[in-house]
């Protein structure tokens, strides 16, 4: 349904009116073959661990989700109601494909799965996420991550 023409008119109008970021440069990082990549998931689904602070409107920070987190402890506090949640209710991997990454690592398709993964709240303006994203990049490097799989909702 994410074909623009399949969205209801109000949603189409919203999507077309969304202010999109423009960047002066187009950075492009290359690296080793996929089989040697250490991969982390970064999602904008507003995920956090049960008991942690939830995402508030305009939140520019992020939450850490360990690779071995129990799916029963992963909650979603994204503020938007304009996307399906029943898939996530059935299976965390439809948004946060941690089990799929582990299978790809076991099969040798990717090198390894990062120890930690991260979530932002995607309704926040991109410009407000820059400082947190650059900070997070440092943590990813410390974990040896050289590939990020970005998952929106």
């Amino acid at each position: 349904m994410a074909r623009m023409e399949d969205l209801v008119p109000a949603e189409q109008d919203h999507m077309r009116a969304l202010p999109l970021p423009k960047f002066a440069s187009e950075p492009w990082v290359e690296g080793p073959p996929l089989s040697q990549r250490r991969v982390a998931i970064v999602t904008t689904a507003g995920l956090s661990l049960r008991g942690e602070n939830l995402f508030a409107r305009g939140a520019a920070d992020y939450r850490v989700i360990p690779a071995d987190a129990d799916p029963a402890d992963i909650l979603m506090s994204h503020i938007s109601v304009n996307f399906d949640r029943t898939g996530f209710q059935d299976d965390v991997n439809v948004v946060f494909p941690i089990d799929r990454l582990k299978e790809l690592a076991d099969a040798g398709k990717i090198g390894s799965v990062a120890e930690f993964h991260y979530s932002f709240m995607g309704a926040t303006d991109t410009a407000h996420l820059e400082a947190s994203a650059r900070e997070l990049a440092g943590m990813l490097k410390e974990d040896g991550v050289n590939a990020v799989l970005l998952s929106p909702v």
Partner: protein
Amino acid sequence: MCGLAHFFEDEGIATTFIALIREHAVAIRAPRALWVPFDLGRPFGAPDEPAFQRRVALAALTLLESGQGPVVLADFPDDAPGPKAEDATGWVCPVSFAPPPDGDDGPAAAMLREIGELAPWYQLSSDRRGRTTVGVSGLEMPAAARFVASYLDGTPAGNPRPDRPASDVFKDCCSDIMAYYMEAGTAKPGRRSSMDVQNWFWRDTAAGRTFLEVREKLRRGDDEILRFVVERILLPKTQHG
């Protein structure tokens, strides 16, 4: 989301991105994006479809080996398994609510009764799925429902989570109630689209009717934040009009 890709690449980390809206990916020029024709909220296609999810993940990750930068946009060729969001599948919620014992006593009382009637289905869902996504408010379901319903009165109940702004607690209670209903209503596996479930909640339950009444009341109120909540982040656009 695409902005994060730009920042990470600028810091020296390669990225690949699932794009749910192709027009956005084209406009933003993310370094590597895989457009997928899936429902919003389902970037890896469909729940409980590990082989399909793995294909999507691998298709996105394979873009890391492309030497065609600085912008690569690929299209995933297949629709997700199962009905699409907008499909009408004929799904009917297996839970039928009992009529009110003494006539119509209003949506809020009916919502509390529904929550009780849904409890065994919610438990069934939690047992089958091994988890629940209810819990953002930190309140038990009846308490969450009573707090939301109190906004129908002139004076809302005191904030049951004084550590958080009341408007946030209101939104979180609404999120928990919706999740509770949707998990309970779909406790039995079956073919259904997300729109089937959404329509059931908003059109066929007292909780949906309560939310709509609260929405109408708060839209006319003085609290600017609550007006934003009920106008922008309570009722899905698919249910407008």
